[in-house]
């Protein structure tokens, strides 16, 4: 593994042109090391989602530089041709709601990503089962998403985010729909997986319960970020 987390310098995003232009991100700098879980917090409209979409290669930043692992992916323009493949292979997503594909069973929900990347069905399912086992949901491998509890769904979603071994995982309010026990469980799992797979994890959250668990936190307000040390409290 040569992953080096994610490194962002001077990232800006402007919506619109001329008098109506809105600068949603202003010279954002961020560094998340492999195995590290950082929090990204801020009020509504502060630019969290915009930053997440830029990091997720879903929208185009206006300027700046992004290095993912050891690859420069953006330097005032995209340096990779296939953003779809970039998202598939280099970025893991965990959403507020699990958004599992309702017509695929748990194994195939996770195995879909390697399959999309060209891995054979059997190998992809084997890889998915390994992760499901690591996340302790292997006993629901053949279940449909509708048969799972909220916590189980979120663990499957985390497995899906990790299955292609991406250098970075972007988690968008992953604990919002969960009670405090399950929320802590999800954060513990993210930390475990980050360490185990040397993945950098950025957790966007409003959740007061989990904020004290981060060792480092990026606050964002009006598109400007500043970093501060977190409490790094135990989530056990």
């Amino acid at each position: 593994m040569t992953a080096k987390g994610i490194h962002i310098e001077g990232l800006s995003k402007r919506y619109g042109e001329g008098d109506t232009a809105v600068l949603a991100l202003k010279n954002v700098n961020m560094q998340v090391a492999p195995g590290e879980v950082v929090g990204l917090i801020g009020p509504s409209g502060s630019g969290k989602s915009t930053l997440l979409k830029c990091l997720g290669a879903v929208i185009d930043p206006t300027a700046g530089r992004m290095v993912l692992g050891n690859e420069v992916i953006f330097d005032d323009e995209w340096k990779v041709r296939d953003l779809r493949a970039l998202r598939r292979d280099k970025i893991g997503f965990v959403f507020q709601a699990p958004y599992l594909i309702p017509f695929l069973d748990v194994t195939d929900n996770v195995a879909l990503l390697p399959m999309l990347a060209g891995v054979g069905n059997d190998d992809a399912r084997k890889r998915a089962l390994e992760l499901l086992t690591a996340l302790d949901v292997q006993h629901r491998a053949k279940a449909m998403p509708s048969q799972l509890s909220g916590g189980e769904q979120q663990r499957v979603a985390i497995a899906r985010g990790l299955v292609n071994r991406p250098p970075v995982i972007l988690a968008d309010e992953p604990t919002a729909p969960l009670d405090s026990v399950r929320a802590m469980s999800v954060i513990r799992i993210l930390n475990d997986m980050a360490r185990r797979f040397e993945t950098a994890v950025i957790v966007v959250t409003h959740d007061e319960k989990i904020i004290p668990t981060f060792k480092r936190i990026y606050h964002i307000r009006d598109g400007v970020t500043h970093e501060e040390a977190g409490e790094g409290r135990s989530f056990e």
Partner: protein
Amino acid sequence: MISLAGRDILHAWGKFIFTGIGLGLLIGVTLTMAGVYRGMVDDGKVLLDNSGANLWVVQKDTLGPYAESSSIPDDLWRSIRTLPGVAEAANVTYLTMQVGRGEKDVRAMVVGIAAGEPGTSGWPPQLVAGRQITRGHYEAVADIATGFRLGDEVKIRRNHYTVVGLTRRMVSSSGDPMVFIPLKDAQEAQFLKDNDAILMQRRRTEANPAFNRPGVPGLLDAVIASQTSNNSVNAVLVRIQSEYSPQEVAEPIRRWKRLTVYDRAQMEEILVGKLIATSAKQIAMFLVILAVVSAAIVAFIIYTLTMDKIREIAVLKLIGTRNRTISGMILQQALVLGVIGFVVGKITATFAAPLFPKYVLLMPIDSILGFFAVMVICVLASVVAIRMALKVDPAEAIGG
């Protein structure tokens, strides 16, 4: 790679099956409409086949005897018979009317057949029960579609006939079953006036000094006899000798007898191209409307199914699913819906066809064309949903 479309269909199979059944009933109606048209064409061809003729000799400048009324003398067949290449010539009359049986009546084409033997032009070629007509009067052979049975007594105008034989698929070009009776009876049925009309005509003739002259005994009786008898038939059916072509035989009849003669191809053109042309256009319009309605329904269903999956599509795009994979999923679902619909439609049409009062002919080629048409419609109908799916922004999967 797993089949996303297949998994989605298996997951929501009830929705697909019931939607497919609904679509299938519509396709069934479409196939049946095509079968109705084919049945009309086939009725016309069967009519020509069963007549056993190579040429139809009719009144000059008419499209008789099936498409227009035609009246020619009933002794003309003798002179036609003597022409080179003519193997057989037989008089025939056709009259579509209500044929009574007890309290009820049936719409039928009454065919007057000349005296002869089985195999003579105009005679029913095969019977499914009973025997051919052997007497000169008051016997009938009826198509089984009339509902008549052997031994039934049926009423045609003033006379009663006993059904002695039954045929199958002997119908007019409009699908009415045929009833064969002797030619003389048919001529009477076609041209005979009612009693009051005969009496009034006799009175007028008696009052006419030109016909009721003193000193010319027998003139009035002769005139009245000529007025009440009928010597016309609708057509002469001609069978030609094998070494002659239809045109070789038809040409002298046209030239010397000043009659109109049609060969098989021309008669088919009259029946299919003229007699049922309007009905065919009517059916074609229905087919177009049904095709458009089917397309609209498939498009709506696929669009709705896709709308239900917008979030999943956004997630799929976000995690790197290619547009062609998503398009393929929607297209495959539309095609599966079409296949389910076609199978249901074909089964529906097959079981419904015999229930129709007129002949419905479901031809394999129509089914094959129908299948491909359904597939094309499904492909076109899925375009709207595919376009919508491709416009889905993967960012929709991320909040904010």
